[in-house]
């Protein structure tokens, strides 16, 4: 284990491109997400406890739970981190001047490589799979059957909900357009193991995907999951009243981009944010804190 959960939450940024980009999604899920940073702040936020001794006891139990690798929380965080740890990320230092300013993408053009649609659909699918696997590591399989489990996932709110929205908008709607769902369907039905093997995101997370010891087994897992998704995944934007124009309208206030270059905008969001890791750490810390206060 590289870092404890309190260290991870303590160092979450309060500003920067990730926070600004997630803030733009507030219209998707109004008021659902607050950027809670600092582990004691998270304890107070999740439990509404303010007494210092109580917070300290919750903290101690939470750290113990995270420290035990058999509990699954570390692995959940690892998946979120690996999804976001692309080699081409723009360094935090070069992002410093973005705070509070409108970001000009032109200055980062040399860092941006638009993805082909195929690679982008694979990324979208893998992020959805990674989200579900992480949820299972963090929360187990609550309840007595798929009905109970469905209820747990349907209760997605706060950090979980904003992250799911970000996957669909940043990795679906913007790079692939309004028919991102259809493109994912086509991709899921036509992938071969080599498509996954050649995907950088898959290479990072395959060890944590069930069956990831071999590409063929991981492919079977990923493709079966996405095959089941194909009739539904495109409905997210419509169900939430999310349109490409609406999203771009929000983006214009923060980022200068060219209307015809949405693949570049998507590439920029990809390299300039780590929304999976950021909100993933917040989600896992919530799960641990809720359990810790239940156990002290």
């Amino acid at each position, binding site marked *: 284990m590289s870092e404890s959960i309190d260290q991870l939450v303590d160092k979450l940024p309060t500003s920067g491109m990730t926070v600004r980009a997630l803030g733009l999604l507030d219209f998707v899920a109004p008021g659902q997400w607050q950027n809670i940073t600092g582990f004691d702040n998270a304890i107070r936020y999740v439990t509404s406890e303010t007494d210092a001794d*109580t917070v300290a006891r919750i903290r101690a139990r939470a750290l113990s739970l995270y420290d035990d690798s058999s509990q699954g929380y570390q692995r959940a965080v690892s998946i979120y981190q690996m999804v976001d740890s692309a080699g081409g990320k723009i360094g935090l230092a070069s992002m410093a001047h973005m705070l509070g300013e409108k970001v000009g993408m032109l200055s980062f053009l040399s860092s941006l490589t638009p993805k082909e649609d195929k690679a982008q659909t694979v990324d979208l699918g893998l992020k*959805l799979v990674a989200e579900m696997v992480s*949820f299972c590591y963090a929360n187990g399989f*609550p309840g*007595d059957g798929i009905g*109970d489990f469905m209820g747990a996932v349907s209760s997605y709110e706060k950090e979980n909900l904003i992250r799911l929205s970000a996957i669909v908008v940043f990795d679906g709607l913007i790079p692939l357009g309004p028919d991102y769902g259809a493109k994912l369907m086509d991709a899921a039905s036509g992938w071969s193991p080599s498509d996954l093997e050649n995907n950088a995101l898959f290479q990072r997370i395959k060890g944590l995907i069930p069956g990831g010891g071999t590409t063929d087994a991981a492919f079977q897992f990923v493709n*079966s*999951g996405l095959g089941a998704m194909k009739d*539904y995944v495109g409905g997210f934007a419509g169900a939430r009243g999310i349109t490409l124009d609406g999203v771009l309208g929000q983006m214009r206030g923060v980022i200068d981009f060219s209307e015809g270059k949405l693949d570049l905008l998507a590439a920029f969001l990809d390299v300039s944010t780590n929304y999976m890791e950021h909100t993933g750490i917040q989600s896992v810390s919530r799960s641990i804190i809720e359990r810790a206060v*239940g156990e002290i």
Partner: protein
Amino acid sequence: MKKILLVLIVVAGLFWAYRSLSGPKTTDMAPSKPVAAIPAAAPVAGKTFNKMFPESGDGLKVQFTQEKDGYAQADLLKGAKKLAQLSISDTEANPSARDKFKDSTKKIGGHAAAPVGAMGTAVLIANRYQVQVRSTDPSFTAADREAWISKFKLGELN
């Protein structure tokens, strides 16, 4: 939104099925360990607690949200609003949790009761299992917490 969540559930189901078929290959997700490896006081599986939670009813829904060895947790929901967090934990994993009951004179359903911070109320069953109800909405009072503790099937924990 619901559609995509349903879809994600399908993936989870596949994951679940995969785990069931392939057996525990990692320690993280292993639902149980070989019997020989379990110390006498190892925490019981969280799933065994599920049937002891209160039932949904009267417009309120009990929604399971987390399940680990020695622990099960549910939300008490009124529509989309979360009123309370319900949990059962095996204090074998954290024995100091029993300390707060030692000097307690308060009882709920005949079991020693104690506050957990300002927002929680707990009882200790069989000197081992802690049942806790925590308010997550201001409308859910301490009296509501006691009432909901009584709705757990406490007798089955003995």
